[in-house]
């Protein structure tokens, strides 16, 4: 993996983030009913609204605000949250790791379940197992997250079964088992939909590989079926599978928004929904940028993993 490739990719990520920051800033700038009204709420009078918006700098020309904001972002001073009167960095800092835990849990679960399922479906193409997996894959992608979350809530966390806590969060340092126990349902919801999506992709990648010339050549060399699958087919199907999973990180980050809202998981997703409803501009801008940065970096990481798996990319 030569350094030039790495540098080029990093530059691309920075460029992407710059575009996102500009887009997010412009979008938040034209929010109707500005933040001051939201903060002071029903009891504010006109003069108070003006005073607060001056204080928040909402009246300066937008490009001045953008440069000021961008400068601040780079210098690590992400400003103060308008409603929570806490520095944005702390607000996002805490929330980010909680969402990261959910995302990691979901990605791990998906990799453990979706890849073997996809491979099995491809190897048993046309049999009952393949059709069953296909149906599950279609159903999984046809049901929105909040419906799956609600169903899990009723059946697995309801007073009758009481298997899992109905949402809520316990910090890992306080009690790790409690932390993991509360993660089960949110991760299950996210994994259900992601697995459905990825099984189909892995299945088609694997069936491509199984139909390839080099797998045929391996079989015609008299290698056992196990050797053909493990040494020849699987390694070649893994690289594209990783690429597909990294693309779905965006899908996952979207799903987190809903899952955190339903299961009261105080992560970045819920922070964004709160910020959008309360027009908390600095938090909206910073949180969206963080999510976009995570997604861009996850693509970079997956590129590296792919390079490790596929020599053709490594020695490009």
């Amino acid at each position, binding site marked *: 993996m030569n350094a030039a490739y790495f540098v080029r990719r990093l530059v691309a990520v920075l460029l992407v983030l710059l*575009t996102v920051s500009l887009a*997010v800033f412009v979008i938040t700038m034209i929010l109707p009913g500005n933040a001051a009204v939201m903060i002071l709420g029903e009891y504010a009078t006109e003069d108070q609204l003006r005073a607060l918006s001056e204080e928040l700098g909402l009246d300066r020309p937008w490009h001045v605000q953008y440069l000021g904001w961008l400068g601040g972002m780079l210098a690590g001073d992400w400003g103060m949250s308008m409603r929570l009167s806490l520095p944005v960095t702390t607000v996002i800092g805490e929330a980010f790791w909680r969402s990261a835990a959910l995302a990691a849990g979901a990605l791990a679960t998906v990799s453990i379940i979706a890849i073997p399922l996809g491979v099995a479906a491809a190897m048993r193409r046309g049999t009952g197992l393949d059709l069953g997996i296909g149906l599950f894959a279609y159903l999984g*992608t046809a049901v929105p997250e909040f*419906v799956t979350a609600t169903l899990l809530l009723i059946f697995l966390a309801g007073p009758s079964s009481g298997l899992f806590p109905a949402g809520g969060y316990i910090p890992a340092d306080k009690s790790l088992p409690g932390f993991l126990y509360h993660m089960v349902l949110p991760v299950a919801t996210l994994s259900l939909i992601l697995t459905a999506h990825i099984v189909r992709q892995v299945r088609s990648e694997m069936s491509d590989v199984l139909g390839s010339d080099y797998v045929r050549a391996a079989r015609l060399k008299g290698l056992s079926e196990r050797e053909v699958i493990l040494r020849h087919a699987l390694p070649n199907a893994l690289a594209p599978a990783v690429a597909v999973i990294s693309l779905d990180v965006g899908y996952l980050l979207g799903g987190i928004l809903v899952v955190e809202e339903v299961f009261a998981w105080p992560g970045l997703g819920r922070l964004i929904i709160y910020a959008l409803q309360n027009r908390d501009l600095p938090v909206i801008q910073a949180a969206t940028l963080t999510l976009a940065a995570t997604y861009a970096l996850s693509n970079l990481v997956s590129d590296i993993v792919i390079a490790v798996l596929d020599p053709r990319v490594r020695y490009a």
Partner: protein
Amino acid sequence: MRDLLRHPTGVVGASLLLVIFLAVVAGPSLAPYDPQSFHPQARLQGPSATFWLGTDQFGRDVLSRILHGARATVLFGLGATLAGVSVGALIGITAGVAGRWIDSLIMRLLDGMLAVPDLLFTLLIVTVIGSSTGNAMLAVAVAFSPGMARIARSAVLSVRTRDFVQAAIARGESRAYIIGAEVLPNTIGPVIVEASIRVSFAIMLGATLGFLGLGAQPPSTEWGLMIAEARQFMFRNPWCVAAPGLAIAIAALGFNLFGDALRDILDPRGRR
């Protein structure tokens, strides 16, 4: 068209879509009750002879609301995807055809917009232009256009290098003719396939917006909103959540299966 019927997922997909299409077109006239009228005495009842799918918290007939809501929900999905596809395809084709710096500029912009997850991107836009069905549709369309642009662009690039386009260039055909008669007709296939699969995403995105209270607003009969409103009463009458949920699943499944079948038929290599 007939090989669509020989294709298993195609048949299932097409039949589901037929049901949905029937609901969209004939829904309001088929509905046994007025979707808004209250039946206070029959609140939150399960399916019965009089109310085939039960009633919601105001005693309104769930079946009638689903039939009326088909139009709002499915046309929302179709409209958003159509708008997103046409805008996206336009951008993608210009990037593919123009090439050089225009292409890389557009691609950089698209990468930027694609870095933000679809749902978040839609939420941002809806918060800007206010939450209503129309605005939500516009937001989903804008959120879809980068993905579509990328697919349209790759379709154009793959066709551009084909010999029959090179032959046209060699003949000295005008740029407009080359794009119009040679490139475009051969890029429509992949764009249509992708569009039909994206309709299911659009429907689900719309439902999620309704759930977060940022999409369709009361008294709309959009299915996502119906689920959001009925969630408080789900323990007393699970049907008022299950029925619209099922409807969304059928619509999303229908478009998904149909899209996949279309892709297999159009892509001669046949992924099956």
